[in-house]
């Protein structure tokens, strides 16, 4: 069925059109993004249950973007009188005028930017979904999660508890400018299984498995299968040792591959960083940054994931950018204002945490292309190294091309065979061109995951997805 567009947004559209018109009398550019995205968040374990109708992506509000005398400003709000749009316009102008007066007193100059293209465009997209969070049978879901949690505690060695969590959002967004009228609606859902077990020496190990995608709570059916392998994984973690720091040959599972994609040339080619001179990538367009085995795509059109929108939060249609082609850096990704400043075209990557936050260049789906090597051949080719599984967290460094990835566990490989020894946790660090330059094998299959969220620096959290095939390369592990 179609993910129906918000009746609320349809109802306020005439008023917002009026707002664009009134503000347009004093502004070189005006646009409005309005959102109406209900959802839920549920958590069930053996020891507690909780439910809320808010999660990272639920919201209802509007943000106006204007350019006035060459100065870009935004006004975010969620209270207004539909019957008195001139009053709202006056409130917005007064609010921005107060800030402008302060900036003038401080002598602030505007960064030269120009005006975006506003070619006429209408779009109405309602993506497919199997169900909706608003009508989800939470009683049945809670009961099922309780049963799964119980199964987790029974089957995962030493588990103190097993937490089943889910969130689902029915997203509707409306974008209006003088010439653009864009509407989209889609549903995203994700779920996780998490369990903790103490080790004999008082340490604590945890496992984390997730499902996510474009669609309704039916996606959560996949959690049952995720629980199946959790007991074996925990047994391995409980018997794991610490790694001896050093450089190793590594094989990464699709989740760790995705984490590398995200931290290496996801953040590294966000072109708002090019404007600020904060990314080395700006100097490497057309140059080699990885081996022949490396091709990487980024865009909301790359996969039907939790970030598969039809247009971004600046009213730019979603794209599919080839960032790296056979090891050569081809292109970055760009929001609208950064594109104006760089003299290029936006790529549909302008995203906000929610309507009350600024739009930045952000990732959507960041994915390595697949190869032709089997996992068995990869393992056989490793003399001394680790097979890394379970992406946990990472951090980017676009200015210096450093990378940090925290990985749940590593399986030792010696002389082409898995030895059965497991290490945990593993911190992968390195220099991005070396890491990508050493990629020598890639598997034909690939996986894309969309659990978790991504920050810009240490703030501005948005949903992203990333992945790719099994890869073989070299890295420093600690």
């Amino acid at each position, binding site marked *: 069925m179609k993910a129906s567009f918000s009746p609320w947004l349809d109802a306020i559209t005439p008023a917002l059109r009026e707002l664009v018109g009134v503000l347009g009398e004093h502004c070189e550019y005006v646009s409005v993004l309005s959102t109406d995205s209900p959802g839920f968040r549920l958590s069930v*374990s053996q*020891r*507690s*249950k*909780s*439910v809320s*109708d*808010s999660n990272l992506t639920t919201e*209802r509000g509007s943000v106006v973007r204007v350019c006035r005398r060459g*100065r*870009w*400003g*935004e*006004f975010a*709000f*969620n*209270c207004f009188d539909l019957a008195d749009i001139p009053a709202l316009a006056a*409130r917005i102008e007064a*609010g*921005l005028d*107060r*800030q402008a007066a*302060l*900036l003038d007193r*401080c002598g*602030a*100059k*505007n*960064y030269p930017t120009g005006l975006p293209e506003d070619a006429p465009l209408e779009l109405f997209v309602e993506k497919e979904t199997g169900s909706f969070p608003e009508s989800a049978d939470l009683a049945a879901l*809670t009961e099922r999660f309780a049963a799964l949690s119980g199964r987790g505690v029974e089957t995962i060695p030493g588990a*103190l*508890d097993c937490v089943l969590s889910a969130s689902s959002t029915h997203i509707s967004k409306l974008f209006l400018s003088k010439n653009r009228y864009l509407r989209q609606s889609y549903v995203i859902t994700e779920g996780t299984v998490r369990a*903790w077990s*103490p080790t004999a020496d*008082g*340490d*604590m190990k*945890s496992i984390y498995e997730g499902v996510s995608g474009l669609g309704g709570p039916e996606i959560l059916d996949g959690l049952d299968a995720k629980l199946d392998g959790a007991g074996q994984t925990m047994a391995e973690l409980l018997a794991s040792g610490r790694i001896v*720091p*050093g450089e190793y040959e590594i094989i990464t599972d699709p989740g760790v591959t995705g984490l590398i994609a995200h931290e290496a040339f996801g953040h590294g080619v966000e072109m708002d960083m090019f*404007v*600020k*001179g*904060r990314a080395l990538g700006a100097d490497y367009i057309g140059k080699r940054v990885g081996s022949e085995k490396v091709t990487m795509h980024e865009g909301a059109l790359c996969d039907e994931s939790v970030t598969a929108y039809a247009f971004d939060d600046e009213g730019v249609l979603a794209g599919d950018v080839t960032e790296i082609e056979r090891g050569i850096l081809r292109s970055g990704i760009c929001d609208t*204002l950064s594109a104006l400043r760089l003299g290029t075209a936006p790529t549909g990557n302008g995203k906000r945490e929610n309507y009350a936050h600024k739009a930045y260049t952000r990732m959507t789906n960041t994915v390595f292309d697949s190869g032709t090597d089997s996992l068995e051949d990869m393992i056989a080719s490793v003399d001394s190294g680790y097979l890394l599984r379970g992406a946990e967290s990472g*951090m980017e*460094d676009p*200015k*210096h091309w*450093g990378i*940090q990835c925290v990985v749940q566990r590593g399986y030792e490989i010696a002389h082409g065979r898995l030895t059965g020894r497991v290490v945990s*946790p593993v*911190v992968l*660090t390195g220099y991005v061109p070396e890491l990508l330059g050493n990629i020598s094998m890639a598997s034909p299959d690939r996986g894309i995951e969309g659990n978790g969220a991504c920050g810009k*620096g*240490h*703030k501005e959290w948005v949903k992203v997805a990333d992945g790719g095939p099994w890869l073989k390369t070299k890295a*420093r*592990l*600690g």
Partner: protein
Amino acid sequence: MMFDKLKRKLDALPCAAWELTETVREGWEFYFIRRDLDQHRAVHVTGYSVRVYAASKDGRSLGRAAGDIPPTATDAEIDRALHALLSRAELMMNPFYTLADVPPAVPFSSEPVDVEGISGGFLSAMSAVPETETEFVNSSELFVSGVTRHTLNSNGVEFLCSYPSSMLELVVSARQGRREVELYRLFRSGTCGREKLLGDAAAALRCGRDRLAAEPTPKLEGIDVVFSTADAVELYRWFAQRMNAEMKYKKLSDWEGGSGVGAGAALCLEALPSLENSSRNFPVDAEGGVIFPRYLIRDGIAEQFWGERQYSQYLGLEQSSLVHNFRASGGTEGAVALREGGCLELVEFSALEVDPASGDLAGEIRLGYLRRGGETKIVTGGSVSGNLRSAAPSLRMSAEAVRYDNWEIPAVTRLSGLRIAGVS
């Protein structure tokens, strides 16, 4: 008006109890590329958070469902949302606990926050950051908010408080010929704190200069690690998390009141209602609990858990609350002495992460000072990893303290037993 409407509807709802919070936020935001304005933003948002409770027939269980009601919601939407919350609360039965029933008898401010004045203070301070030809501000983002929170529950406990909350993201660069490095800082505070901000910015510029001269971190074994910047908060946050009632109830913390926390006899961790210029200075928590000063850990012994009413009551704590300001202390050594002997002082990470349950610690090294044999080398690259639970017995803290927003911690912290993965 919306607040009163929601109160009336909640009163009429056949639920066991309810809580309602109105949060009004006026935000001023300024984004700069070097000294030029990228854009400015005004945020005027109002939120209504509702918690609806349902009790089991035997009175031994309580369920809760939380929700946000948009200020533009129609009467029909509100009614539908509240009844959905009640239905969901009935599914979420947990052991019974009670809501706040004593009005908080503490002074607090409900005066509007001067967001414009605070913003002006920040912009003035930022213009005074001492740049040079080779060390300069690359970009900055300023967020200033005035927040007013009005909370009421079905027991009649009601309070209103206003507070400022600010955040400045500062990226500084240092250049030598064609080579350029950057450092990232995220300062949080109540208002501007001009002198502290300028001091912190100057320190960041100095670190940038040092990073230009850094060599790859060598292989190191058995060397002590010294933490002397805001990342050290993550070490003390781990102790606070281990003393959290929810962590304890869910068995993710095995610490017991009256027992040692494995950090020697010195460590003290206090919960405080306020700290100078903290962005989290409000005397009452979101559930109506008065945030009173107390020791969570005293002289290395776990003393009192803290947290939500639900989990605090499960632990049998008669008096508890959420905590937003912390002080870690107990060191007797001087900061200078803690840097003596062989050590690696790490001052810049990509991100220093400590897992709250396991204590596993990891961070990529962006800048450090390797001190051994009477020499100091500036290093970069590689990583530090280890387990804080294992390393905690070696904890050494300076007597001198430093404040990072809502945390006051020893200026210098030294640990043994962490592993360094070098680059060369």
